[in-house]
């Protein structure tokens, strides 16, 4: 099973975990893995100082077991956010594994996760708060990264690569020295066109973030609370 990007539906994939349709359940599961595997891996690795091998085994086994036992479908949105539910389930899984004192064996049907990339990211991140705050921070990063990925895929399909490249250069690159004029020269466009493209990309980015958030939440109340956690509170 490989991890797919977010599907283009606006339906809650959390609710789809309990679907009668097996294919829909699998798609929903893959979407949630795409959003959450890195925050959980980093949570184990950095928040709880697990070795790389331990954290890899734990994350891989957690998702494999969750898929086999359909444990994510037991989520009750009246009790907590899906994000909190998943972290609590992960904590419990890690504690049980620790008690058993044995390394989890990877079985068939495991999800393919790019731990190399996650390790490289850890090396570039700033200092760590409490494990729970760190998990939240990485969740925000993960949702934004997936939204950027989806924006890129859509603009590729629509052959609007220049628009995305302007957004990437102006808003994503850490080299913040670039001006509208330089971008106009680089892409051979009038400066007004650069600002128009940038505004359009920002608008679409925002739409995609909210769309993604709708997918990984199960109710209107949860969507509101998670939107506040994602956008409302300034770091």
């Amino acid at each position, binding site marked *: 099973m490989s991890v797919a990007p977010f599907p283009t539906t606006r339906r809650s994939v959390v609710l789809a975990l309990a679907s009668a349709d097996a294919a829909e359940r699998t798609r929903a599961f893959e979407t949630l893995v795409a959003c959450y595997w890195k925050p959980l891996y980093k949570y184990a690795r950095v928040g709880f100082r697990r070795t790389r091998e331990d954290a890899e085994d734990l994350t891989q086994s957690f998702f494999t077991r969750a898929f086999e036992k359909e444990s994510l479908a037991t989520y009750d949105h009246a009790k907590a956010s899906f994000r909190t539910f998943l972290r609590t389930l992960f904590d419990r899984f890690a504690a049980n594994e620790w008690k058993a004192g044995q390394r989890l064996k990877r079985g068939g049907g495991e999800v393919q996760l790019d731990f190399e*990339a996650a390790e*490289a*990211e850890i090396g*570039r*991140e*700033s200092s760590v708060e409490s494990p729970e705050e760190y998990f939240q921070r990485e969740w*925000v*990063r993960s949702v*934004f*990264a997936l939204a*950027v*990925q989806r924006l*890129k895929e859509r603009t590729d399909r629509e052959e609007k690569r220049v628009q995305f490249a302007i957004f*990437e250069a102006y*808003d*994503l*690159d*850490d080299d*913040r020295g670039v001006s509208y004029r330089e971008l106009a020269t680089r892409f051979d466009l009038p400066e007004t066109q650069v600002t128009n493209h940038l*505004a359009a990309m*920002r*608008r679409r*980015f*925002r*739409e995609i*973030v*909210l769309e993604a958030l709708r997918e990984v939440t199960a109710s*209107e109340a949860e*969507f*509101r*609370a998670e*939107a*506040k956690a*994602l*956008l*409302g509170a*300034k*770091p």
Partner: protein
Amino acid sequence: MNWLSDDAVARLRDIAEQPQLTGTRYELLRELGRGGMGVVYECHDRELERSVAMKVLDVAEARDEWRAEAKTLARLEHPGIVPIHDAGLLPDGRFYYTMKLVRGQRLDELRSLTRAETLRLFVRICEPVAFAHANGVVHRDLKPQNVMVGEFGAVLVMDWGVEHIAGTPGFMPPEKERSERSDVFALGATLKAMLHRDAIPRPLQAVLARAMHDEPSQRYASARELGEDVQRFLDGLPVTAYRENVFELAGRFLARNRALVAVIAAYLLMRVIVFFWMRL
């Protein structure tokens, strides 16, 4: 683009949060402040060529509740309530409303007021709150940060509440149900915060205790009653919240009628002098 730096995440958060004003008559100038429900920006209204304050609600906030609230507030026309100019949905789907841009100082930023000035200011805060109550509107989040004192002395109560505002710790009454009497509690807490540096006289302590009573039925029934009691104190009259003893009564009488007492004392002194003069 796989990994986003902390700076990039912060920028994207700002981008996702900033209101989209394309195609509207407004141009974003700067952020003025943020609260639990949204962010207030200073905007330029191109149509009328003036600056306005625009409150943009968080994406998480339900539009219908706010739309109803904006309608209610638009009907509250009082010099102490910030008037709403316009309300609607931004192209990004968020609800907004624009208000008069009030220039001045927040009540919690005001310094060096005498006690009398503080009390006079407080009475003026009670007036728009009483007016709103008479029109069936409860503020729900009264506190010094939500009162502006304008450049020319205008007192304006801002940030009128919506159904799901709980209030601010320290200004919030113990009961869950919000009513006029919960606003009375918050007004009491506001007055207490305004007087925090002063030694508070007993009648005013009683006013505060009554306004901030744990049991709503034991509080002032309205903001008007509270304002009137504070005005009585300012005028040297007895307050309804406090039963004074004979010495306090005499002291207050003396303080209030200094000139009259001085004239009577001078007259009596003169009579005594004349009496003894005649006996010599």
